[in-house]
């Protein structure tokens, strides 16, 4: 069992994950086209590179502009969401144990954070996930658009962290929990390409590449 989930199953989930990302990207890319040059050019449009960025940041970070974003309307939840997303990506990537496994298999490793740091990150992540769950259950707006699918996905995202935490602290039978941990991690990777978790690709594509009022300005493509 252990050999299977660490061998072929891991490959399958990596491949599904990568294909999922490519598929998501292609799905969005294929319905966008090159952005047309604007017929009316504003004077400051001649600004290039750094000057343009500076101007944009000045505008985007002004208190008036921020008021309309979630940083202005729900700063606490925005912060929570930011921490949640940083942890969900950084913790598994920079976890010492993962990097040791990686090195054993491929003689290659990423930079690792100390074990106590990742332990704290795991707890912080789980706290954020718990608050998200509470929010989903008790805040009327979020509840109105939540279905069983949304709860399930939150569980899919949190499960590798819960099991990883239990395994690291050896709170339950290690052999069993590590197997559940690996399976839940693989499930999460698979889910990214196939479910709502695909917003990982969508977010960057739409907000950076598509030039519209919903992007961080000046993307190079537009919806067809």
């Amino acid at each position, binding site marked *: 069992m252990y050999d299977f989930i660490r061998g072929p199953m891991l490959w399958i989930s990596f491949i599904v994950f990568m294909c999922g990302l490519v598929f998501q990207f292609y799905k969005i890319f294929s319905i966008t086209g090159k952005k047309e040059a604007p017929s009316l050019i504003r004077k400051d449009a001649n600004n290039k590179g750094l000057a343009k960025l500076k101007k944009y940041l000045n505008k985007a970070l002004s208190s008036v502009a921020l008021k309309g974003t979630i940083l202005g309307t*729900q700063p606490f939840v925005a912060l929570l*969401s930011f921490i949640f997303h940083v942890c969900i990506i950084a913790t598994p990537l920079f976890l010492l144990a993962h990097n040791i496994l990686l090195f054993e298999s491929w003689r290659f490793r990423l930079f690792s954070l100390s074990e106590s740091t990742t332990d704290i990150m795991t707890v912080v992540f789980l706290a954020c996930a718990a608050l998200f769950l509470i929010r989903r259950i008790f805040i009327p707006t979020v509840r*109105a658009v939540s279905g069983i699918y949304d709860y399930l996905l939150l569980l899919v995202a949190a499960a590798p962290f819960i099991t990883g935490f239990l395994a690291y602290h050896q709170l339950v039978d290690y052999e069993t929990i590590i197997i559940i941990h690996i399976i839940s991690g693989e499930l999460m990777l698979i889910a990214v390409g196939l479910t709502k978790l695909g917003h990982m690709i969508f977010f960057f594509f*739409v907000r950076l590449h598509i030039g519209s009022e919903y992007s961080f300005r000046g993307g190079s493509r537009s919806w067809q």
Partner: protein
Amino acid sequence: MSENGNARIDNVRIEEMLKQKKRMRIFLSLCASCGFCADSCFLYRNYKDPRYMPSYKAINSLGKLFKKKRKVTRLMLEEMSDLVYGKCVMCRRCYCPLGIDISGMISWARTICRTQGVYERYDIDPMGRIKKAAV
């Protein structure tokens, strides 16, 4: 409100119109149901009723149409019209951190309703709608 109450729904046309908006299907499939868009809608801020939340309106109008495809009924469109006309003024202020164009979806749901003769009769009973919307 609908003009021709008994006319049949042109399901084929609805399906064709849905097909034209592939991006909206993607929007709906990726909306994280996070509720962040709620506070960007001034109607929601006023009424504090979740039915005014932008994503609620989009999911329960265009989202429903995508789900039902050829099985859309007139009653469904009538119910939807209360959301897309009565609970949205198309000001396009709604803001989604993922970059989903929510008002675009509500607008397309309106367009589909209109092709089936379901639309807001401001000329007949505007006050009735406003009272209803204020509950």
